[in-house]
């Protein structure tokens, strides 16, 4: 993604990422009626998109920060979200490509994979670390119920990817510089002048 992947100074990046984190996290956990539908998981996909578009350590760092936010906002303990975010950001960074086509292909591959892995890991955590061990819990049942909502969750997460990409494009937007034609080029360039 040439627009987003271009080199930018660190302060501009920090500013864009901080704004993105606060805005998206606030929207994601905003209480209200809309919680009846599957919500886009911005905090999960932020490190993925940043890793795929910016490479290096940015996806990794973003994964840690957004994971921390997830743990802080709704987690039962600290570290789980950070670990998940770190792995996602790290993997995404490894698959970075400046080629637009390649980026979309990889995003379309990662999007369902990340959603699926997240659901499975949350299911396993709910089963192995229950809030009340006296209450009956069946792994098969949790898995079945989790996967029942998978199609909607996939759609919501695809929406999250598009929104994040749009915000990143907006944050790293650069006006295209108009190439001034020289006198020689005005007449058809150097070759014609010869």
């Amino acid at each position, binding site marked *: 993604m040439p627009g987003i992947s271009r080199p930018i100074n660190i302060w501009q990046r920090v500013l864009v990422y901080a704004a993105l984190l606060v805005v998206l996290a606030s929207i994601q956990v905003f209480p209200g009626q809309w919680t009846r539908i599957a919500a886009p998981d911005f905090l999960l996909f932020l490190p993925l998109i940043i890793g795929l578009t910016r490479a290096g350590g940015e996806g990794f760092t973003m994964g840690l920060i957004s994971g921390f936010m997830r743990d802080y906002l709704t987690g039962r303990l600290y570290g789980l979200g950070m670990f998940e975010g770190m792995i996602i950001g790290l993997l995404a*960074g490894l698959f970075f490509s400046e080629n637009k086509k390649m980026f979309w292909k990889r995003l379309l591959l990662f999007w369902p994979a990340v959603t699926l892995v997240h659901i499975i890991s949350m299911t396993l955590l709910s089963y192995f670390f229950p809030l009340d061990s006296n209450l009956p819990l069946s792994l098969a049942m949790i898995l079945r119920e*989790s996967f029942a909502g998978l199609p909607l969750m996939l759609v919501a997460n695809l929406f999250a990817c598009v929104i994040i990409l749009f915000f990143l494009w907006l944050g790293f937007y650069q006006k295209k510089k108009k190439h001034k034609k020289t006198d020689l080029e005005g007449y058809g360039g150097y070759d014609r002048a010869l």
Partner: protein
Amino acid sequence: MKRKAPRIFIIVLVTVAILATMILTALPGSTRTIITDYFGRVFDPVVSFFQSSLKSVGNFFSAVSENRDLKEEVAKLEKENSDLRQKVIINEEKVKAYDELEDALNLKSRFKDYEIVGGNVINRSIGPMFDLFRINLGREDGIWVTSDRSYPVLDSQQNLVGRLYSSELGSSRVVPLMHEGFSISAKVPASAGNNFRVRGSVEYKNRRLCLADQIPEGTPLQVGDLIVSSGDGGLYPEGIEIGTVVEIITDSRSNAMQALIEPASQLEELNYVFVLIDHALPSAIEGK
């Protein structure tokens, strides 16, 4: 463009640190509250500010659409009449707040032995499982959750919302009624001694229902019955409304009677909640 990926030793170091954090924060009390106390002081006001801005934008747009409707009426009605209507719209929010307050006062008279603290929902849970939601009441408000001490959370209509899971300086996490880790001893108001368990169930969560099980034989349970807390266990006072029976089922394995309960509280529409603090329990100071 080539960018440096993080070095292996940094990744290993961070992973070890994360694992240590996980273990430390999994222990009751401990580090989790310390981290949240410091971070919350900075982050919560930012989120609250942003969310209130979102609300104001929403209110603005709804006000614009309401104004459009009013303009049509102004053409039909006399000026005086339209002025009154506008005043009604402006006062709608105040009426809502008054209703909340009135309900809270009713709550106060009902649970005389409890101190009632009201607060806002800060954020909802992210995932359908494992996660919890947060409210803006914490240790500063006299709420000290420990491994053997928790508090019931009600809505303004005196319906059960859930219980507190942990308390930080300015916020607390709530386990909602439909969470797979929630359970409460319940009964039908008229019956004495026939207590049973109402719990969150993964199977029925998507249908927004709870499950009543361990129902003693002969319990007069019917569809449409109101279910309230029995008062057993000491955490929840007797008589808190939990929900209504919507279906009686039979467990396929044990052949025992079970019931599906529709919670009385509209969890998705919650904005304000009330925490009941029982001063008869070991002093809050002990929790400190």
